[in-house]
C-alpha cells in the first residue's frame, strides 16, 4: 500500500497456482524460461489440496491419458507416502486418490526442483495492454504494488481474470445466471473400510454403479469388483433409499451425491464431496463469501449424517475442511477455437491436440440435479492449442477451468488431470516461443509439430490411446 511501483521482469508469468498453473510454471521453467508463478493465497496447489481425487488422468478404459508433469508430481508424492492409488470407481471413471496434506509438500518440492519462482499472497490488480499484447500486470500485496512485465502471460486463475482484464471475450455459466455449485470438501478420520464395504454389499441400491454402457457389466458385477478393490471409495447416490429418505425428512440437505474418497495411504482418512450451493457467480466475491455459513452448516450436517447412518463411520471423527471453497464453473474465455460438447462425447482426435481429456461430462446442478454423460467407448478426446489461446491477445495462454469450451465440454475438461495436461502444454509452448529470442513473441506462433514432439518427449500423452 505505497504509492511507488516496483518492477520486475520475467520471460513467463503464470497467474494462479492451481493444478493448471503449477503444471504451466514447472513446464515453462524446466524448459528454460525464467518463470514466475503468482498466487493470491498463501499456498500453491489449489484443488489438489482439497481432498477430492484427481479426475481425468485415465480414461474409462484405464489408459493413462495424462503424463509428463503429472508423473513427476505423483512420483514425488509416492516418495512422501502420499499416493493412495489410481482405481476405477465402478461407476464410470478412474480416479487418482492422493493425500492432500502431503500434496502440499509435493507441489512445493516439484516447483522448486523445476526452478519456478513463487510470488504468493499477491493479487492481480491491473492488466497493462498495448494493442494485442499484454505488456504487464500490476500485483498488489503487503509490499505494495509491483509491475510485472513478461514476454508471455499464462492465465491459470480458474476464472480467466487476467484474460478478461485484458479484454478477452468470455462466457459464464449458462449465460442466464446458472452456475455449477460451489462445494466445501471435508475429511473424516477413523473410518472402518470393512464395515463400509459390507454396507455397500448388503445395500447396493444406495450406490452409483455401472453408469457407463461401454463397461457392459451388470450392477452386480460392478458391485463385486468395487468391494474386491477394498478401498473406502463409494459414491452414495441421492436417489438411493438412505439419502432420499434423509433428504425428504430434512435430516440431510438436498444434494446429488455423497462421494467418499480415500485420502491417506492407511485408508483410515476419507474426504467427502457432497456439500453444495448452486448458482453462485464465484467471481462475485461477496456472494461467494456469503456461501461459507451454508457450506459449513452442510459440512456439519453431513458429518453427523454419515456418523449416524453410514456403517463404517460410527467411530469416525471430523478431521477438517479443504483450504478453500471449491469452484466448478465461472468464466470460459473465448479462444481461437472452442472445444465442443460433441467433440468430447464423441472422443474426437486431432492432429493439433496438445492435451487430452477423458472425464465424463459432469455438470452438477442445484440440489439433487446432476448431468452425467460418458465419453464414447470409454475413450479420450484431444484439446487443440487454439482452445488455450484467448482470441485477440497474442502473448497470452489460458489453461485450466477457464479454457475455451462450450458449457458441456467444460463439464468434462474442468477436472484436475485435464487442467494439468493443459498447463503443461501452454507452459511448454511459452518457453519455446521465448527460446527464439525474437522481440514480442506470439504464443500461437509456436510450431505445432515441434511443440507436440517436445511435449511427448517430456512424457505428455497425446496419441496412442482410445
Amino acid at each position, binding site marked *: *500500500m*505505497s504509492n511507488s511501483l516496483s518492477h520486475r521482469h520475467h520471460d513467463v508469468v503464470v497467474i494462479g497456482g492451481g493444478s493448471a498453473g503449477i503444471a504451466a510454471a514447472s513446464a515453462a521453467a524446466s524448459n528454460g524460461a525464467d518463470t514466475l508463478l503468482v498466487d*493470491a*493465497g*498463501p*499456498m*500453491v496447489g489449489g484443488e489438489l489440496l482439497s481432498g477430492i481425487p484427481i479426475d481425468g488422468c485415465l480414461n474409462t478404459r484405464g489408459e493413462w491419458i495424462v503424463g509428463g508433469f503429472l508423473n513427476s508430481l505423483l512420483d514425488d508424492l509416492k516418495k*512422501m*507416502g502420499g499416493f493412495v492409488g489410481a482405481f476405477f470407481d465402478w461407476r464410470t471413471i478412474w480416479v487418482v486418490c492422493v493425500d492432500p*496434506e502431503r500434496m*502440499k*509438500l509435493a*507441489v*512445493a*518440492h516439484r*516447483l*522448486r526442483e523445476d526452478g519456478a519462482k*513463487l*510470488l*504468493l*499472497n*499477491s*493479487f492481480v*490488480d*491491473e*492488466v497493462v495492454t498495448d494493442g494485442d499484447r499484454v505488456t504487464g500486470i500490476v500485483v*498488489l*500485496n*503487503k*509490499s505494495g504494488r509491483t509491475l510485472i512485465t513478461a514476454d508471455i502471460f499464462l492465465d491459470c486463475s480458474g*476464472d480467466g*481474470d487476467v484474460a478478461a*482484464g*485484458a479484454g478477452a471475450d468470455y462466457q459464464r455459466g449458462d449465460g442466464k445466471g446458472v452456475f455449477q455449485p460451489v462445494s466445501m470438501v471435508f475429511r473424516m*478420520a*477413523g473410518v472402518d473400510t470393512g464395515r463400509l464395504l459390507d454396507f455397500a454389499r448388503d445395500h447396493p441400491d444406495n450406490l452409483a454403479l455401472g453408469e457407463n454402457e461401454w463397461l457392459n457389466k451388470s450392477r452386480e458385477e460392478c458391485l463385486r469388483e468395487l468391494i474386491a478393490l477394498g478401498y473406502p471409495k463409494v459414491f452414495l447416490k441421492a436417489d438411493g433409499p438412505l439419502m432420499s429418505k434423509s433428504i425428504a425428512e430434512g435430516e440431510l440437505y438436498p444434494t446429488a451425491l455423497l462421494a467418499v474418497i480415500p485420502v*491417506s495411504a*492407511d485408508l483410515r*482418512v476419507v474426504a467427502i464431496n457432497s456439500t453444495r450451493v448452486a448458482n453462485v457467480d*464465484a*467471481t*462475485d*466475491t*461477496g456472494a*461467494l*463469501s*456469503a456461501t*461459507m*455459513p451454508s457450506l*459449513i452448516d452442510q*459440512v*456439519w450436517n453431513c458429518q453427523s449424517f454419515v456418523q449416524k447412518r453410514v456403517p463404517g463411520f460410527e467411530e469416525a*471423527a*471430523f*478431521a*477438517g*475442511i479443504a*483450504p*478453500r*471453497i471449491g469452484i466448478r464453473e465461472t468464466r470460459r474465455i473465448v479462444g481461437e477455437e472452442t472445444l465442443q460438447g460433441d467433440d468430447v462425447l464423441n472422443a474426437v482426435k486431432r492432429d493439433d491436440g496438445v492435451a487430452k481429456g477423458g472425464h465424463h461430462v459432469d455438470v452438477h446442478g442445484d440440489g439433487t440435479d446432476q448431468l452425467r454423460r460418458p465419453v464414447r467407448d470409454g475413450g479420450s478426446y484431444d484439446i487443440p492449442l487454439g482452445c488455450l489461446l484467448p482470441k485477440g491477445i497474442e502473448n497470452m495462454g489460458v489453461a485450466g477451468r477457464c479454457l475455451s469450451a462450450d458449457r458441456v465440454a467444460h463439464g468434462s475438461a474442468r477436472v484436475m488431470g485435464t487442467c494439468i495436461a493443459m498447463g503443461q502444454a501452454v507452459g511448454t509452448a511459452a518457453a519455446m516461443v521465448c527460446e527464439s529470442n525474437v522481440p514480442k513473441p506470439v504464443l500461437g506462433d509456436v510450431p505445432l509439430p515441434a511443440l507436440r514432439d517436445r511435449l511427448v518427449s517430456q512424457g505428455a500423452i497425446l496419441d496412442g490411446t482410445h
Partner: protein
Amino acid sequence: MNWQMTETETDVLVVGGGAAGIAAATTAARNGARTILVNAGPILGGELNYGAPVDGCLTARGEWAVGGFARDFFAACEKYDGYIGPVCDYRALNLVCIDPEAAKLAAIDLVSRADVQVLMYTFTDQAVVDDDGRIQGVVVRNKRGRTFIRAKTVIDATDDGDIAVAMGCEMMVSDAANGSAQSESLLFRMSGVDTGRLLDFVKSAPENFGAMEYPGFAEDAAAAIAGLVKQGQPKVLLTSDGPLLRDAVADGRMYPTSWVAVSPTSTARREVSIHTTVVPDVDATEIAREGVAFDSLHEQISMCADFLQRSLPGFEEAGLSAIDPFVGIRETRQVVGDYVLTGADVLSGKKSEDGVAKGCHELDVHDTAGHRRENVKDGGSYDIPFGCLVARDARNLLVAGRSLSADREAHSTARAMGSCMAMGQAAGTAAAMLSEPGSVSDLRGINLAGLRTLLKEQGAVLDGIS
C-alpha cells in the same frame, strides 16, 4: 482493466480475519454496528487454525484473563467437538487446547451469526484520509473489482498495521521486518499418537523434557514432571538439554533446533500439533510479505516427523496428518499509539484504569541475541490500556492484535492469541459505541468508563484477578 469502482458504506470496517479481527467484527456487530470484515485469505481464524494452543487466555496462576468473545469462541469449538480446554505445560504457562479444524468452523459460525458482512479473498489497496486526519474508509480489491468501503471507524487487525501504514501513521519496525535473521515457527500435526506411552516415557526419562520454570506449578522439577504425567495430555516439550533431541541434532537425524513442542489438538483423532523453530533460507520480510514457505521447509517437516516416529515413544504408529498453510510470523511492525506498552509494564503486572484488555503470556523474545523468556510478576496479568489500540496519528483508526502499540518486549507477550481476542473485543466495542447516533467522532472523546462497563457486562475480564 477498467474496473469501475463501486462504493459501499458501513459503521465499522474490520480489516484482517485472524483472532483479533473475528473478535472485533463479531463484537461490533453484536453491539449494533453495521460491520464489514475484509480478509485476504479464503477462511477466517488466522493462527487459531494452525494447531498451536491458544496462549494468553489464563495466567500462570490459572485464572482466566480473557472472557467474552474468547469464551464464546471456545464454546463454538466445543459445539464442533473441538475443545480440549485448559492444559498446563508445567513449565511456565497455562494454555487452551482446541482442534484447529473445529476452529475454522467456529470462526465462520460466530462471525456469520452476528450478521457481519464478510468479504473473503479481498485485498486492501488504499486508505482514504481527509484533511482532518480522519480515515474515511478503505479501497479494497477482489475479483469483483474495486470497492471503496466508507466507514465511521476502521479497525486494523491486519497484524502488520497495513492500514496504519497506508494512512502514513508512525510505526515501530522490528529487526525482523528489516530483514535480520530470525527463527520462524514451523507447525504440523500428527495423528494416532499413544498418549499413555508418551507419558510413560516422560516419567522414565524426564531429563528430555522441559518443566518447572514458574515456581507455582510444583515444588520441584520432579513434581512438575509428575504433574505433567498425571494431567494425561500429550502436552510436552522436548528440549535439546536432554539426550534424545541433542543426540538427534548432533548426528543429523534432526535439524538444529532447541525444542520441539507437542500439544493436543484432537482426542478423537489422537492428534497433536508439533511446533518447532527453524531458520529458513529466506528472511522474515519475504515470508511475511510473499509467503515463501513450503519450498524451503518441506524437508524439515519430513525430517521432524521421521525423528518423532523413530525416537519418541508414543509416536511409533503416528503419521503426518496436517501441515499449516503458512509459516507463523511473530513480529513485523507495530503502530505507535497514544500509549506504548512497555516490557516493564508487562513484567511488573501493571494494572491501569484505562485497561480494556488483559495480557498474561510470558515475555518471549526471539531475536539475534537468542531467546529470552520471563514470566509476568507472580504469574499474574497486566492491563492493556485503550491507548495501545488508538493510532496516535489518526482519529478513528483502532488497532487490534499483533500490531498494537507496544515495545518489543511487551509485544512479545501481547501478541498471544488470547490477548488478540481480548483486544479485538475492546476495539469492536469501542467502534460500535462510536457508531451510535450522536456519538463523538474521535476515539479520544470516548467514554472510557462506559466502554469498560460494557466490556465487563459482555464477559470481558478487566479486573479482579492477579
